[in-house]
């Protein structure tokens, strides 16, 4: 066991600056209006740095810097861009602990996860897109003996990216890596709840990127995000967040006729067929862990398996074991490597989760575990901690239908295959799902019948770069990860070329 020293204390592997400005055109610049806002850590609730409060003037400046850099960056050889991405990955790897502790302090998540998942996944993501861009090919279509259609991938130009607070560095990477690989310049707005860790990342990688290719404007959604989404100088907006903001971003994008990619959340079903309990073996243990995955990242994951569907024949046994498993989740100081669940990212998130636990109880759902805030003493007393909570109820209840974005799972039972699929698909969303079965046929059929973009089959919460991620239904538009993501940051140039000396014959 290791407990990392808190940033600001002696021996910490990371030191935050006392203030962060905007990163525009390769340098830090103060906000046009000179305003800053305080950034607390959810671990203790105390402020640890202050952040530039961006406005439309700052966004204009960043878009201008990106526009100035985009043409040259877009013309670089794929090998050159790949080399930059690989260097970014190497620098992150050399600073793994620093980035992991910064991310934990920023977001409240356990350092156990940032060390093993967030930062290693981000590193691999840069490497993946470094490889993908070098391997990408255009197309050639032979129209007739003398005519050829050449299809080239060209960058869009300047793209706007609005990053969520649940994985501040990893979600920024999901958007940055393909955009940069494809040859775009970026204006990125971090979430106002978690604006600082991206600057720790920049302190490690900024020197590797040509000035103006990556620009970071901090600030609030309404003051900085909105002018970015509306800016006539950007050629695409990528957003991860909630449905109403997603609709608003589409509305703004329609004003400039630009594409959007949206990832808007889910209410992912995690289905356990009866045969998972046919033996008390390694696979059963894995399935039990799969149930407990709702607590990963404090449940603040768009694909949180927040609805568990358990077949009636094994319900009592499986849930008995599952509740015991949840009881073993260790909650505490996020900087302790033994801690499995840390703090919710902000006070309002904490309050929202408690309001959902309240309506769950009012609707008659039974609390099988948790159901309260967690009172941690000492320095953590001011942080935002909630007990891992298991509800038993009915799929029509609001806790089964709305994204709570907390460590809360709502469990119901099903009788047969058709019943399971019907309940799984009875949701507005379709981002993730889990299927657990020892029978390959059942698992395959269920995976194909569930209306969701990612169906984890006998696993959950794995995010390899080479697997497409994105939503069906109201969960969004487009995909992230996988080389197909390059298409979302490129447009097609077709050269239609005639090699014939003869007139076409019209005039």
């Amino acid at each position, binding site marked *: 066991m290791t407990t990392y020293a808190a940033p600001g204390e002696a021996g910490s592997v990371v030191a935050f600056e006392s203030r962060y400005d905007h990163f525009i055109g390769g340098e830090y610049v103060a906000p046009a209006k000179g305003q800053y806002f305080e950034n607390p850590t959810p671990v203790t609730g105390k402020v640890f740095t202050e952040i530039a409060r961006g406005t439309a003037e700052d966004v204009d400046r960043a878009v201008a810097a990106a526009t100035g850099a985009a043409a040259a960056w877009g013309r670089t050889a794929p090998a050159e861009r790949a080399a930059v991405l690989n260097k970014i990955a190497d620098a992150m790897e050399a600073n793994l602990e620093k980035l992991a502790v910064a991310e934990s302090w920023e977001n409240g998540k356990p350092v156990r996860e940032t060390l093993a998942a967030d930062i290693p996944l981000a590193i691999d993501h840069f490497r993946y897109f470094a490889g993908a861009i070098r391997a990408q090919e255009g197309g050639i279509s032979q129209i007739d003996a003398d005519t050829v259609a050449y299809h080239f991938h060209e960058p869009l130009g300047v793209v706007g990216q609005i990053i969520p607070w649940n994985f501040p560095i990893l979600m920024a990477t999901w958007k940055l890596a393909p955009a940069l690989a494809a040859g775009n310049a970026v204006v990125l707005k971090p979430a106002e709840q978690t604006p600082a860790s991206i600057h720790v990342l920049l302190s490690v990688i900024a020197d590797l990127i040509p000035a103006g290719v990556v620009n970071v404007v901090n600030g609030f959604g309404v003051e900085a995000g909105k002018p970015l989404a509306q800016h006539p100088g950007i050629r695409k907006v990528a957003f991860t*967040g909630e449905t109403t903001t997603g609709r608003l971003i589409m509305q703004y994008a329609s004003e400039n006729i630009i594409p959007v990619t949206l990832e808007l*959340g889910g209410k992912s079903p995690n289905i356990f067929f009866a045969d998972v309990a046919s033996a008390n073996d390694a696979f059963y243990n894995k399935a039990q862990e799969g149930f407990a995955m709702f607590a990963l990242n404090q449940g603040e994951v768009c694909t949180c398996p927040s609805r568990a569907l358990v077949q009636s024949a094994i319900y009592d046994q499986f849930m008995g074991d599952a509740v015991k498993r949840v009881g073993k989740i260790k909650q505490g100081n996020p900087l302790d490597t033994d801690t499995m669940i840390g703090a919710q990212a902000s006070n309002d998130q904490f309050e929202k989760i408690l309001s959902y636990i309240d309506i769950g109880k009012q609707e008659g759902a039974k609390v099988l575990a948790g159901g309260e805030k967690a009172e941690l003493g000492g320095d953590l007393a001011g942080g935002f901690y909630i007990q891992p909570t298991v509800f038993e109820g009915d799929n029509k209840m*609001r806790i089964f239908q709305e994204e709570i974005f907390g460590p809360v799972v709502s469990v119901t039972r099903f009788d047969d295959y058709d019943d399971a699929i019907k309940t799984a698909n009875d949701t*507005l969303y379709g981002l993730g799902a889990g299927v657990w079965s020892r029978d390959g046929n059942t698992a395959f059929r269920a995976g194909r019948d569930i209306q969701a973009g990612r169906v984890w089959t006998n696993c959950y919460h794995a995010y390899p770069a080479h697997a497409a991620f994105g939503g069906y239904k*109201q969960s969004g538009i487009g995909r992230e990860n996988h080389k197909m993501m390059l298409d979302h940051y490129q447009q097609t140039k077709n050269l239609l070329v005639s090699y014939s000396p003869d007139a076409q014959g019209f005039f």
Partner: protein
Amino acid sequence: MTANRVDLTEAARALLRKLSDQHGPLMFHQSGGCCDGSAPMCYPAGEFRTGNSDVHLGDLTVAGVPDPIAVWMSAAQFEYWKHTHLTIDVVSGRGSGFSLEAPEGVRFLIRSRLLTDEELEHLT
């Protein structure tokens, strides 16, 4: 009796007076989805385009705010919410998409209770 689907706490009324002074007429749209979702978003009236896929839950009247504040939700989401009464409250916090209150260091929040049979009769 009169019944409504949505109401405000005193703290929310006070904040709406302030936002109305700064931004003019206001509206709410209840968001689903992740991150800052499952929360009411406050915009200048007309900023968010509502349409056939939305339900108008009601108009809030606030002393000191000249125009009623319309509250909307997507119709699909309303199907799962229609048995509950909503009270818009305010908590300290940060971040709420493009909602107007975030720079104030606060955030609108929905508190819910089940509608009574009598209320449901009046509302349907």
